[in-house]
């Protein structure tokens, strides 16, 4: 039996989404995609810099990978919707990661504007994956508004600090029927294992891969981590207990 993550009717075999920011060179991106076996990558839309026009980063993404533009830079729902529409018109498909941020210190998302953007874009036929602060009611409203998955943060963007919001993530995983994709904060493959083991549907990783000494090797490690975590979740971990419970039989000791 193959275990798929289905989002908007698309069956994904990989539970790792990869962000393409912060890489020292775009040349690394196809290698990272291959090593990680990711099937969903995020990109951003920016004004061109005429002094250094640079390259078209989409050319570095294999054609069979889903490109999910983010709406970074948006400060409210309308700006997010505008960025999403531009990206779709530019031929990026209809998946979008909503990101609405006004807090510059922790880059925490604005859940209220994110709910509004989800509603606007879902109605326009987008596959909407909102980046959000892990709050149960906000997540419910995003799903009601048409979110295909919900992407709560583990820790602030780019911090590599892991699952600091673990208890809230656990509640979201338990209560929300849509896939929960832990986005932001995951710094190590062990934390990706933990998220999947808890029942997260997937994780989105960028900084942890891009800033590793060897990003391609780290991408491979994350690709394996999500597989391990998912297997452990499907296997159903045993119960924990306060006191020891012998694993070896307590009878027939040699000294008896």
């Amino acid at each position, binding site marked *: 039996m193959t275990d798929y993550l289905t989002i908007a009717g698309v069956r994904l075999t990989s539970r790792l989404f990869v962000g393409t920011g912060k*890489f020292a060179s775009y040349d690394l991106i196809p290698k990272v995609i291959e090593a990680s076996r990711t099937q969903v990558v995020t990109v951003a839309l920016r*004004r*061109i810099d005429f002094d250094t026009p640079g390259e078209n980063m989409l050319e570095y993404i294999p054609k069979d990978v889903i490109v999910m533009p*983010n709406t970074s830079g948006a400060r409210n729902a309308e700006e997010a919707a505008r960025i999403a529409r531009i990206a779709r018109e530019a031929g990026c498909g209809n998946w979008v990661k909503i990101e609405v941020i006004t807090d510059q210190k922790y880059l925490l998302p604005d859940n209220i504007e994110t709910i509004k953007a989800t509603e606007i874009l879902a109605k326009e036929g987008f596959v909407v994956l909102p980046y959000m602060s892990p709050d149960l009611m906000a997540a419910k409203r995003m799903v009601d508004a048409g979110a295909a998955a919900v992407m709560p943060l583990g820790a602030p963007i780019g911090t590599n600090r892991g699952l600091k919001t673990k208890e809230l993530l656990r509640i979201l995983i338990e209560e929300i029927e849509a896939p929960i994709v832990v986005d932001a904060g995951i710094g190590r493959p062990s934390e990706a294992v933990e998220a999947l083991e808890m029942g997260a549907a997937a994780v989105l990783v960028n*900084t942890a891969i891009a800033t590793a000494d060897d990003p391609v090797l780290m991408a491979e490690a994350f690709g394996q981590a999500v597989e391990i975590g998912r297997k452990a979740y499907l296997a159903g971990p045993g119960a924990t207990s306060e006191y020891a419970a012998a694993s070896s039989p307590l009878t027939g000791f040699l000294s008896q």
Partner: protein
Amino acid sequence: MKLFINGKEETFNGLGTLHDLIVSKNLPEQRIIVEVNGNLIKRDEWERTALQEADRIEILRFVGGG
């Protein structure tokens, strides 16, 4: 002609269409996205898009992002 390009005011002479502007900026080979006054203009419409005084033009592209 005065235009606002990516938020900056610039002055041009002899510019007729959006296509002329893209050429003058040495950008035709790039995969770029262009908005004029908030409306997305597709590539095949650049040559027929006449520029007007004080148009606000956004020239965008995809970059790495998380």
